[in-house]
């Protein structure tokens, strides 16, 4: 008797848990759906604004959809969508000789975004290579000062750009003053960005190298593969996902950086897209559709990169977050 009731009770409990679990699962899903919609609401609104006309973004009271007519509040056939905002960003000028039939006169697209792409790719490449080298050294070698150096780099990870900005600005000015021919805004900002996004990447890289079993390398060494061959043929292919993650994380960090690009670069023509955005905001205070369109133009590439490579981002962030 005793045995029977005891075996019965857990079974009932389990049945109770599954139904309760299912009900909770549904509620949790519902809650997450609401939270996700709330989180995406500002972005959706920006997309909406970017396709409105000037007369629809400057109405009092504001309308959500530009679809009202004198007779009806919402008429899908009467929607006044337009790409006016995007045109203000691109500023196409008819030019029969050029490839597209028009020339892009908007500074965002012909100046600031190319600058950002150059800075982001260069910095991400340098950070990836240097972080890979350092991560390998920290992961595979025991040498005097190793722990101290690792702690120092971890501490530097937390140092923000802001407090060093004054000194970096003065350093740039001094170099410009001392060696006018040698100084280059582009080179300087790439080195500054490298210095700021490298420390975290070193830690992430070390974590990725740590995850590769040493036995694999030792086996390769015993089989007659030289140290360099081991590195290039065995280790490298295994850390490609890790290095890709570092590249992407640095790329996005540079793309999104504002204050250093704004203050350290002296020539306006060499400033990045985030400065372009700030500048554009100042010029188009009431043209909300143009400001929204500029936001979409700058942010969309990053959203696309993220959606395609999200596993890479999560891997790098968890690796970096647990250590740092």
């Amino acid at each position, binding site marked *: 008797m005793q045995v029977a009731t005891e075996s019965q009770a857990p079974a009932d409990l389990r049945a109770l*848990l599954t139904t309760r679990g299912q009900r909770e*699962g549904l509620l949790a*899903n519902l*809650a*997450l759906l609401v*939270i*996700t919609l709330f*989180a995406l609401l*500002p972005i959706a*609104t920006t997309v909406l*604004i970017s396709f409105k006309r000037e007369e629809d973004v*400057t109405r*009092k*009271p*504001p309308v959500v959809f530009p679809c009202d007519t004198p007779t009806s509040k919402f008429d899908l056939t009467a929607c006044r969508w337009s790409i006016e905002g995007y045109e203000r960003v691109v500023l196409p000028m008819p030019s029969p000789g050029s490839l597209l039939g028009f020339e892009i006169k908007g500074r965002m697209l012909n100046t600031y975004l190319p600058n950002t792409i150059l800075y982001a790719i260069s910095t991400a490449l340098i950070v990836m290579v240097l*972080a890979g080298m*350092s991560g390998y*050294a*920290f992961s595979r070698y025991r*040498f*005097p*000062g190793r722990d101290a*150096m690792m702690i120092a780099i971890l*501490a*530097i990870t*937390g*140092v*923000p750009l*802001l407090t*060093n*900005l*004054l*000194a*970096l*600005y*003065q350093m740039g000015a001094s170099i410009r003053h001392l060696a006018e021919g040698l100084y280059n805004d582009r080179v300087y900002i790439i*080195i500054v960005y*490298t*210095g700021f996004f*490298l*420390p975290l990447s070193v830690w992430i890289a070390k974590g990725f190298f740590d995850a590769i079993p040493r036995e694999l390398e030792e086996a390769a060494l015993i089989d007659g593969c030289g140290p360099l061959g081991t590195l290039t043929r065995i280790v490298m292919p295994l850390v490609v996902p890790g290095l890709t993650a570092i590249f992407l994380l640095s790329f996005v960090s540079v*793309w*999104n*950086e*504002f*204050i250093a690009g704004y203050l350290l670069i002296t020539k306006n023509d060499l400033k990045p897209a985030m400065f372009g*955005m*700030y500048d554009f905001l100042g010029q188009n205070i009431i043209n*909300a559709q143009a*400001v929204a369109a500029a*936001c979409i133009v*700058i942010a969309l590439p*990053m*959203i696309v990169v993220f*959606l395609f490579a*999200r596993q890479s*981002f999560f891997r790098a962030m*968890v690796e970096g*977050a*647990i250590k740092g």
Partner: protein
Amino acid sequence: MTQLATAPPSGGRHTKRTKPHRRFDPLPFLLLLPTILVLLAIQVYPMFYTLVLSVQEREPSGWQFVGLKNFEILLDSRQLGESAGHTLIFLIGYATLTLTLGFIIALLLNRKSSLSGVYITLLFIPWILADIIAGVVFRLLVLPDYGLFSGVLQNPALFPPRGLSILTADAPRPWIGEFPFPPSPAMVYLILAATWRALPFITLLLLAALQTISNELIESSRIDGANRWQIARHIIIPLILPTMVVALFSLTLGGINGVGMVFSLTGGGPGTSTHVLSYLLYSIGWVSLDFGRAAALALILAAINLTLIAGTLRITRVQQRSI
């Protein structure tokens, strides 16, 4: 760097050693050299340079040593106290809101339903946006008269007496002395916008910590009769507390030093109601062009930052040792 100097030269006197094959290997140092050089130039040297700047003043004749005068002027100024108050209010609101919401969302996501991956991806999109962009996006929503939320917020029936225009409303009269509490509508809105952007990262951090808690532990305590609140209070929160503290420090660091959103969302205004310390640093340095005084402020901020970093390092190391 110092290790390079103190270590025995490779191939030098290795014959004296008992294990000749364990002689000094320069390879790791060569691998680290570029990183160390970059970090010395961009991170370490500027810190000392800021120290030097903070005790100087720019005169027409050049830089003059003025001792602690910059610090005295800075500490005497009303601006510093005011901005520190704004920063404090911002940090408290932002950190509390982000940690609470992040914890709740992480708990919801931790159920490992088939849709979790989709939710994580979608919830993460705000994180990928630059702070400048996030600020502009939130600004567009509440533009005076024209923003989509302005229709509701500026309705006098809902927000007496004259409706609420977030970007232009004055700060309410402070309750205690000059401490800027209650905060201005613009400050509350700035906190919401900053939370929106920081939430995904904190959620992921807490989710990663939650996933290290074994299911058996939760399951067995449930069978032992613990209710959900007791499980959260006595099992989950103590186990992820170190991660929460790390998250709190990372939020505080980001909050003290983040400035892009202030630029694009409020520009420090209306009045000085969203003038935080990071914005004050910019305005002393690049608007007033007083680099000495700005360097003094940068040092104060750096001291706060280093304390936070040291705290984080301590917690993570204690955590690693206990595992």
